[in-house]
């Protein structure tokens, strides 16, 4: 057996540099992947939320229980007038995270009395508007009767849809490697 000693004084430094490069590539790759999810036709996070708001809040009947009475408000324009929820959709990539949310500060400036129904609700400010529409919400109407508005669940549906789309591979992370792999084609 022949043993060869090679003196590489900078080996440790090289290993550190390679490790740093790998971490940098991981971070850049993740950021690029998150940018793709923002909207390139396969998965479009904010467009999915907007479409669900349009379908489930503006374009669907609203279930309500007033006292002991159940009713379905089928008036299609019930929530159409403001359109504020649709305009308050925000999506942005910050660091290694993708944030999809409703801008409640924007909504606070848009909301006007009587958005839900003319009433004497005193608990409007306890919960942001976005959550009052998403979840079941109880308020007191003009007759002093408690009214339950069934939640529209637009956020929940969006989350389930996006999770399913990604799990099904509609946006494969390997996509971001395609330009690199293309160098070896032909």
């Amino acid at each position, binding site marked *: 057996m022949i043993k060869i000693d090679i003196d590489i004084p900078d080996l440790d430094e090289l290993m550190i540099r390679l490790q740093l490069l790998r971490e940098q590539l991981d971070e850049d790759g993740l950021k690029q992947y998150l940018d793709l999810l*923002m*909207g*390139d*036709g396969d998965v*479009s996070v*904010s*467009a999915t939320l*907007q*479409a669900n708001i*349009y*379908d489930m809040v*503006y*374009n*669907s*009947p609203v279930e309500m229980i007033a006292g002991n009475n159940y009713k*379905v408000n*089928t*008036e*299609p*324009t019930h929530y*159409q007038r403001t359109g504020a929820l649709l305009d308050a*959709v925000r*999506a942005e990539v910050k660091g290694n995270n993708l944030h999809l949310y409703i801008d409640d500060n924007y909504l606070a400036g848009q909301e006007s009395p009587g958005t839900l129904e003319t009433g004497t609700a005193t608990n409007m400010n306890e919960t942001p508007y976005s959550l009052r529409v998403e979840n079941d919400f109880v308020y007191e109407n003009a007759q002093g009767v408690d009214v339950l508005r069934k939640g529209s669940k637009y956020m929940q549906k969006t989350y389930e849809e996006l999770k399913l789309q990604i799990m099904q591979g509609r946006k494969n992370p390997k996509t971001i490697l395609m330009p690199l792999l293309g160098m070896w084609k032909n």
Partner: protein
Amino acid sequence: MEKLITQAKNFINNMHEELQTFIMTKQGENDDFPDSWYAIDFDDVQNTVEWMNQNPDNVRPIVQVMELDSPVTNKTRDSQGDTVQKININLALYIVVTDKVQEGTKRKILLNELASELKYKFDNYYMNIPHFRRVSLSLPNGILNRDSDGMYSCRLDLYAEIYKKVR
């Protein structure tokens, strides 16, 4: 048809014009999507329905096109050396029918047929839309029912890319 690069400041208006022309015009022998009206918002749909109620001979399906978040990508150079930006266009297409459209046909069946025909039109003739590249249209995954006024609709997600010249 060679795809164009838009130079319009207001490309959203141009996009609606191109879509309206495409949807309302027969694109080829196998294009079976029927005559329809084009709408851009709730009020437009409502006004069209009211007008159709007064003009029964003009009852047609309505295609409402809603703009969703459409991110603009970083600047890049095209093959001509011009600086361009790609816009990822996300749109929701709602096919809206009243109970007067093809009376007697179940709404669910009618909407499924219309959605299928519209998808065929986009899949096979999208080259006729001057600025739209990489066009894809989904099929709907459910029917929306607005009981109060007998209106039914379904949603198809449309994706396209437009290249915009940077001035």
